[in-house]
């Protein structure tokens, strides 16, 4: 498990010394992902906000117990997970079971491939696939594309969205994500794959509709 970075150590010091600006930065930095993660436990928007509030209070009250053996954010999100689980149980919602159900829908719609009965090209692409290597970042994620991409993340199942946001938006390691979401590495990869493939399809649809 990763130890706190220099930036995190400064943050923890700032919090301990009662530096409100440091706290505000931490709130801005972590709260959006915390809200996202709380939703994984089946909580609505208001309950997710309550849980985030409860988490920050617990964090402040137990700052002295933070020994820096894990990174600050792993510690923060572990506390969030506990709070969210507790709230979810109190609301008698069905807490997502740790066991993992594999989704069977294909990554790419099967109409894009030659059918299994094809004598020569069974299972091979029957449609064009554009390379995105040379598309500038601005075209992929500026203005409307960015809004569409965000909207597509919001339509993902909660766990897919949480894995995607932590891994690809926030840049967490797979180890950290597995720890916080209680996933095996393989299940984490499957969820990440499902999320990326759905977002790919959304982006492809946008690029095609936006072509000159």
């Amino acid at each position, binding site marked *: 498990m990763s130890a706190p970075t220099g930036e995190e150590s400064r943050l923890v010091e700032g919090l301990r010394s009662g530096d*409100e600006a440091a706290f505000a930065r931490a709130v801005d930095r972590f709260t959006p992902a915390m809200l996202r993660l709380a939703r994984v436990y089946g909580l609505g928007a208001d309950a997710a906000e309550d849980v985030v509030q409860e988490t920050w209070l617990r964090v402040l009250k137990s700052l002295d117990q933070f020994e820096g053996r894990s990174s600050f954010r792993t510690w923060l999100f572990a506390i969030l997970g506990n709070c969210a689980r507790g709230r979810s149980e109190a609301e008698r919602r069905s807490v997502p079971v740790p066991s993992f159900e594999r989704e069977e829908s294909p990554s790419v719609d099967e109409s894009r491939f030659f059918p299994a009965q094809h004598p020569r090209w069974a299972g091979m*692409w029957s449609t064009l*696939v*554009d390379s995105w290597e040379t598309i500038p970042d601005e075209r992929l994620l500026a203005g409307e594309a960015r809004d569409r991409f965000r909207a597509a993340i919001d339509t993902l199942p909660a766990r897919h969205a949480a894995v995607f946001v932590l891994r*690809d938006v*926030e840049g967490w390691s797979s180890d950290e994500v597995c720890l916080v979401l209680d996933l095996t590495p393989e299940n984490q*990869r499957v969820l990440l794959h499902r999320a990326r493939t759905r977002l790919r399809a959304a982006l492809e649809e946008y690029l095609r509709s936006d072509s000159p």
Partner: protein
Amino acid sequence: MSDRSADSCQQVVELVTEYLEGGLGASERLAFERHVAICPPCRGYLSQLRRVSTVAGTLSEDDVPERLRESLLEAFRDWKTSPKDR
């Protein structure tokens, strides 16, 4: 995973994240790379999933709802001035 061969494009597209994440065994990885080396559409697909992942890193999450932010800052001030909690 039951079938991890990379004979057809339809199989390859299911393996891309496993490949990018280092989840394939040595022979599976080799078969994947062999397929992609001679298959332009699969190379295109690989580039697409890579881009989804990298452009996501340029996204920032939404802003914190203002009401929540205010109430957190208030809670911080309370905590700061309440010796029993510190």
